[in-house]
């Protein structure tokens, strides 16, 4: 059987499974549609949350980011897991006790204001739509590679699949489908990692293998990796970071952005009890950590594997790295996986000095220049896109064809499950918060569900369109989504629970101040609405305020939000008595019913 047929079998088989589950768990009421009838077990819910949370970025990109950045990119690992601690302690149990369907529901009721509700809807839609574009693009790339179709066709296939199960299934369908997707993606991620850890260190558990001895050279794996990358003129893999302020703020932005993203929060409305919301956050993090603890091992081992593939003499015990440098492999003798990925354009080779060999090194490092000239090198000849590392991993390690098919199904599951969760958050914000609670309160339950499905279809079309014509800023879009959620929604949610004094004027001013300051800072360096050339300052570290990058500004925006809300609220009247009582009642679990709409 050809690799293409195997891929088709795995991807098609997993789809049949998801769609089957979606049909089996069809939503019958608005409550089923939005919060799965409030009856999902905490472990099940934790697994679904993990699938929801781990997008194409976690599955496909993160190991590549770690491989290229080493220690400096640990921020992604800590940022995307630490947010669950905040969720479990500061938000999830109280929002579950409050017992409504959506995030704007809470903000609208707690701050007794339609304006606050509408501002929250806007923040939610902007954050979710920007995030969903990246998922559609990611799914499109995975489809096009494994089904051998153009990437635009890939995106349309992805849109069709998401449409089928998200629109008909609602939350109930999505929850059980996501459990299946989690299982597919975690198996797909771990199997190749275990094989590679075995090959390199003899230890089958990747997270331990990473810190054990590299069998071929007898040196600890990370020490070996440091030696190899510095020999090629790159930074130490484990080197420390100078700009610690920026590192701290970036991690903080990702953490509170995680806690403020509506499609994650909405998950905690689906468990039966308040105590379950706490357990559920813990289980979600356990399931996420299975992938996140493996990713650094995948990243470091792939980086080492890549270097020793090109410079085979570096693999064993090396007396003199200078000598090993002199003998990279011949282009004609390159392994098959390099050939396959060259076809996609994600690996490129240019023989600058026409010696027929592959030279891979850091040609941007002036300190390495003398060594390169001595060897007769005229520039780096091999460019490898970071995003292919996870997808190419089984091929690099010579694993059988079914593992490659499994990776394809896993990557697509990661992208689709996140897209579906985000679309559900968008559609409930439009049908429930905007139409039912603001524009037309007399709408019937059937009408509301129809509106939810129509807005979901609309959101899919918009995301597909933007995915087909990406404005070319994938990393910034994801950072913007986190920045917006961190700077606008999180502080207001937290103050709504922890302060009885916070009133509607404070909340509205806080949200707007946080949102606008963050957008202003980002647009100053990246261009107005990301249109290239309209930025007012070049995006380089010397221009940043106090060395804070635009991607890290969400944390500062959140602080501005807190400060403005506090100042405005103190200067204006207290919230009404019944609101203060409402705040006190969400603080303890007693009397929590199932989630209700009214």
């Amino acid at each position: 059987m050809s690799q293409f047929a195997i891929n088709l079998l795995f991807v098609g088989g997993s789809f049949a499974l998801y769609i089957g589950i979606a049909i089996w768990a069809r939503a019958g009421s608005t409550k089923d549609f939005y919060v799965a009838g409030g009856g999902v077990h905490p472990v099940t819910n934790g697994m679904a949350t993990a699938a929801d949370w781990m997008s194409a970025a976690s599955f496909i990109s993160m190991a590549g980011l770690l491989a290229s950045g080493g220690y400096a990119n640990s921020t992604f690992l800590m940022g995307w897991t630490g947010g669950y601690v905040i969720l479990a302690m500061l938000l999830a149990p109280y929002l579950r006790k409050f017992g409504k369907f959506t995030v704007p529901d809470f903000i609208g009721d707690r701050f007794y204001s339609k304006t606050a509700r509408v501002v929250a809807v806007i923040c939610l839609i902007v954050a979710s739509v920007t995030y969903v574009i990246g998922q559609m693009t990611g799914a499109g790339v995975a489809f096009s590679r494994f089904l051998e179709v153009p990437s635009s066709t890939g995106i349309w296939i992805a849109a069709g699949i998401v449409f089928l199960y998200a629109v008909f299934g609602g939350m109930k369908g999505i929850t059980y489908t996501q459990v299946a997707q989690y299982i597919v993606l975690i198996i797909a991620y771990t199997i190749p990692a275990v094989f590679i850890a075995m090959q390199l260190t003899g230890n089958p558990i990747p997270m331990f293998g990473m810190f054990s001895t590299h069998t071929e050279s007898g040196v600890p794996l990370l020490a070996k990796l440091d030696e190899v990358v510095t020999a090629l003129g790159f930074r130490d893999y484990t080197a420390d970071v100078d700009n610690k302020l920026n590192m701290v703020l970036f991690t903080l932005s990702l953490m509170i952005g995680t806690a403020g993203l509506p499609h994650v929060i909405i998950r905690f409305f689906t468990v039966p009890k308040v105590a379950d919301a706490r357990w559920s956050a813990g289980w979600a993090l356990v399931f996420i950590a299975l992938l996140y603890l493996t990713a650094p091992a995948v990243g470091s081992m792939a980086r080492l594997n890549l270097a020793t593939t090109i410079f085979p003499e570096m693999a064993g015990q090396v007396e003199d790295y200078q000598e090993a440098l002199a003998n990279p492999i011949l282009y004609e003798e390159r392994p098959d996986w390099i050939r396959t990925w060259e076809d996609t354009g994600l690996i490129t080779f240019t023989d600058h000095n026409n010696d027929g060999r592959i030279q891979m090194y850091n040609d941007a490092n002036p300190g390495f220049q003398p060594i390169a000239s001595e060897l007769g090198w005229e520039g780096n000849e091999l460019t490898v896109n970071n995003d292919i590392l996870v997808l190419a991993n089984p091929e690099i390690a010579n694993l059988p064809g079914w593992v490659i098919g499994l990776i394809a199904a896993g990557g697509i599951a990661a992208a689709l499950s996140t897209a579906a969760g985000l679309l559900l958050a968008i559609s409930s914000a439009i049908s429930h918060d905007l139409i039912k609670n603001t524009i037309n309160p007399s709408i019937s339950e059937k009408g509301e569900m129809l509106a939810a499905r129509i807005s979901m279809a609309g959101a899919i079309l918009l995301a597909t369109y933007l995915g087909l014509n990406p404005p070319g800023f994938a990393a910034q879009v994801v950072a913007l989504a986190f920045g917006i959620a961190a700077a606008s929604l999180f502080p207001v949610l937290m103050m709504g629970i922890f302060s009885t004094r916070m009133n509607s004027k404070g909340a509205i001013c806080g949200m707007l101040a946080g949102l606008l300051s963050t957008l202003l800072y980002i647009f100053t360096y990246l261009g107005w609405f990301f249109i290239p050339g309209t930025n007012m300052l070049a995006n380089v570290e010397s221009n940043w305020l106090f060395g804070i990058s635009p991607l890290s500004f969400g944390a500062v925006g959140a602080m501005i939000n807190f400060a403005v809300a506090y100042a405005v609220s103190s200067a204006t009247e207290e919230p009404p008595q019944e609101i203060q009582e409402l705040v006190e009642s969400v603080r303890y679990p007693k009397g929590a019913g199932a989630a209700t709409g009214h």
Partner: protein
Amino acid sequence: MADDKINAAEYWKANVRLITGCMIVWAFVSYGCAMLFRPLLSGIPIGGTDLGFWFAQQGSILTFIGLIFFYAWKMNKLDQKFGLGE
């Protein structure tokens, strides 16, 4: 009713104390051990690198999991003690 109010206030105070404690640990492992104090921990070797690197890529995540389960377990006990559970 009045008793209920006092009870609820006590419960909330205990909860906030617990949260504060957990958040200190949360910040200490991630912003402390993994970032700001990494140079201080560089003398402690672990598998080819230093303790700060291990905290950044493994230790902080493991601590986060521990913290959430500890908090959920403690809160369940508080819920029962104050009779405010479901």
